[in-house]
């Protein structure tokens, strides 16, 4: 049986890496005494499948994890999020859990885009708005990036699916963006760089991940988000 878990990563724990979070989950599942299926062989590992990596330092309301349980396990899904959250360190919380049918495509392949909230510091709203409009109007946006140690030029315009600046309650501008995730996609830090001179990246938070299914866009788990945007 495969469980799909949505979890959030907020506060100081955002400084843990993707690998750190994987280790934290392995321990949390043991603490919660969930019987996780394991690989065979000399050094068996629990069968956990993570989605797209979140950069160290970014927050998220919508991280996903698939967990294979030992055959025949019966669990009460209703209380599972709370029990898993209790087993996780502060800042990480399980917000939704459901079973997924066998053969469900992996998160790595299924997720096509993410929605982000990106704080942009050192620029005012008018400037960011003007530059955002210019980005959206551009037919192509060629960026040079490193791939396997070589500089490669990519047109990232197709990955810029949605972009909306708004006033930030505390500092600078909040950019709400939906960025493509497949085939290298577009990263929030690259988006901030595209905004041009003077733009400095502040806190970044992933709020949603989306999959495409029969032409409709949906989230990997249908359950509503437990957490709304905090401060």
């Amino acid at each position, binding site marked *: 049986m495969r469980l799909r878990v949505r979890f959030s990563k907020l506060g*100081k*724990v955002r*400084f*843990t*890496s993707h*690998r*750190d979070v994987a*280790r*934290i989950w*392995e*321990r*949390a*599942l*043991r*603490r*919660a*005494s*969930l*019987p996780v299926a*394991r690989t065979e062989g000399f*050094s*068996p590992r629990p069968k956990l499948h993570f989605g797209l990596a979140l950069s*160290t*330092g970014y927050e998220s309301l919508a991280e996903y994890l698939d967990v294979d*349980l*030992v*055959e*025949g*396990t*019966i*669990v*009460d899904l209703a*209380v*599972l999020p*709370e*029990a898993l959250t*209790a*087993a996780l*360190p*502060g*800042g990480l919380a399980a917000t939704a859990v459901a079973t997924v049918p066998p053969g469900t495509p992996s998160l790595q392949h299924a997720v096509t885009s993410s929605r982000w909230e990106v704080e942009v510091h050192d620029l005012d709203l008018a400037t960011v708005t003007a530059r955002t409009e210019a980005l959206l109007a551009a037919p192509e946006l060629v960026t040079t990036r490193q791939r396997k140690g070589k500089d490669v030029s990519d047109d990232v315009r197709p990955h810029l699916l949605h972009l909306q600046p708004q006033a930030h309650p505390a500092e600078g501008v909040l950019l709400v963006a939906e960025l493509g995730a497949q085939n290298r996609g577009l990263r929030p830090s690259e988006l901030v760089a595209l905004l041009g001179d003077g733009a400095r990246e502040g806190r970044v938070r992933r709020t949603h991940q989306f999959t495409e299914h029969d032409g409709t866009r949906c989230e990997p788990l249908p359950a509503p988000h437990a957490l709304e945007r905090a401060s």
Partner: protein
Amino acid sequence: MLEPILPLVSKPARYIGGEDGAQVPEHGPGRVAWLLAYPDTYEIGLPNQGLQILYEILNERPDAVAERTYAPWTDLEERMRAEGVPLFSVDTHRPAADFDVLAFNLSAELTYTNLVGMIDLAGAPVRAADRAIDDLLVGAGGHCTYNPEPIAAFLDFVVLGDGEEVAGEISAALAGWKAARVAGDPVTRHDALTALAGVTGVYVPALYQPVTDAEGRLVATRPIDPAAPELVEKRTVADLGQWPYPRQQLVPLTEVVHDRLNVEVFRGCTRGCRFCQAGMITRPVRERPAEQVRTMVAEGLRRTGYDEVALTSLSTADFSGVEDVVGAIVRSGERPAPADEGEGQGPGSSLDCGAGLGGPGAGLASDISVSLPSLRVDAFTVGIAAEIQRARRTGLTFAPEGGTWRMRQVINKLISDDDLYGAVESAYSQGWRRMKLYFLVGLPTETDEDTLGIATLARNVVEIGRRHHKNPSVTVSVGGFVPKPFTPFQWFGQNTRQELERKVGLLRDALRRDRGVQLKWHDPRATTVEGIMSRGDRRLAAVIEDVWRHGGTFQEWSEHFDLQLWLDALERQGLTVEELAYRHRTEDEALPWDHLSAGLHKDFLWQDWRDALAEVGLEDCRWTPCYDCGACTGYGIEHVVASAVPPAGGSQGTGPSPAAVPVALGRRPVPAGAG
């Protein structure tokens, strides 16, 4: 202040705290605030059990609070200094200056420059003599503080021995002083120091002065204040069973060394290896009751979610209850029998958050691996091998230390070649493929034959492995010997750097064409600096400060270690490696740590040194007659063991058949006082 910098540095997760077991204590004027420090990176420092034990014990007290700090890596330190961010606690990111005490755990000499750097980063003058009443009180404990003289100038107080009881007494002593200060009474920093000197086990360097003769040689280190005792005795916790700490071992959010549940099964060691400072200074043996070990393991695994547990001590296979305990861990975790599983009540059917989602066991713990990080080959039996093998296997490490039986008699590590081969055979036959062997070079009386004996042993071990597996591999790890205070070898002149390099070269050449043997060695240049610090005196403070001022931090890290910094600093102080490290000490010479006591009689150590040179071995005193080293009688404590029966196996008087001992063991020929 700190958080905006964190996205810019490597591995920021090591600075955020928030581990399971971490505390957010409530500070207040009635509480002595401790900042417990480890002078190396978080990855190295977090697992330190001593620091974790004190962290819990202090936070349980009404008169104390404790938080933790580790050395920031160079990239963060640079930014902290640039932006005026001081040393901070990882728990609440509180600046060091908000604490009363900055207390270091010192377990390696090469961290001394980090200690100085952290005091400076905390905002206090690095020299204790320059500190004012509002500055931190800087303390230290740990194995290195048995000779604290090289760092004495930086420390307000030093603790010898077990910390469990003394930490509370220090808190109480300082709480009174702090209360008087808060009330506006005219107390001085000196009052705090004298209060500390009144606590048994606490050494206050400022209250002592080295006395030298006309040639500048040390005669004695004497108290210059009536509050200071002539001899500072170490502290010894009599009953480990009363201190089941850490109860809440910290579970790091990011990768650290020894990332597993650690349960200390006993403290002390009576094997009497003459090179081993830990074995000497932690006497007598105090075992934790086997039942308590089982509980700590079970509770710890449940609470932390770890899948590996290490039973720690200086020689875990010597633990009386080791097979029982390992067996209990393995069996408690085994999956329920198939009959239990087939009732539609599979694991996890009862959902009870309190007891866990899968019920007890839940088919999880059979994946638990048990490691015994410190194993003596003569106590490693097929029984233990089989028990560990039932759980998940981890690597196996043995430490014969010497390459020949003669060498091992000198160092009193009385394991025969056959003991080693027997243990290795047990391990290979139970499925292990990889072995690690630890050796020392540069031991007293060592000849090239002894050094090359290491290659022979390694070769034979691989040969045994080939009987069981296709490609067995053996890693041979070689360290240069550093003579340590309070050991019989404290008088021995350390091998020169060139000599250690030559011996490593001999081994490298000898093993060049051996498939299956991998040779690793500790840098002889680093060993040389360790040797200088290990038996150094107060003149070294200037050297340490000099190296730090020239950027010499993280000297434990090979990419940062810089011998030239040390040699230059020594030269500027008019000191030589020859005098500090390479020179044999004489019997009548005063040693820099003579005013401190680890409980061992100096004449016992001298006699044992002579026995070493005569190649005479001593049996384990835990099961055989007392040699009057002083550790038990001085403290009125007997060795505390969980079982009356010695563990099976071995040549050191602990085995079932004394006839198997390859040579006659010498008894100590003359009573104490001779020599």
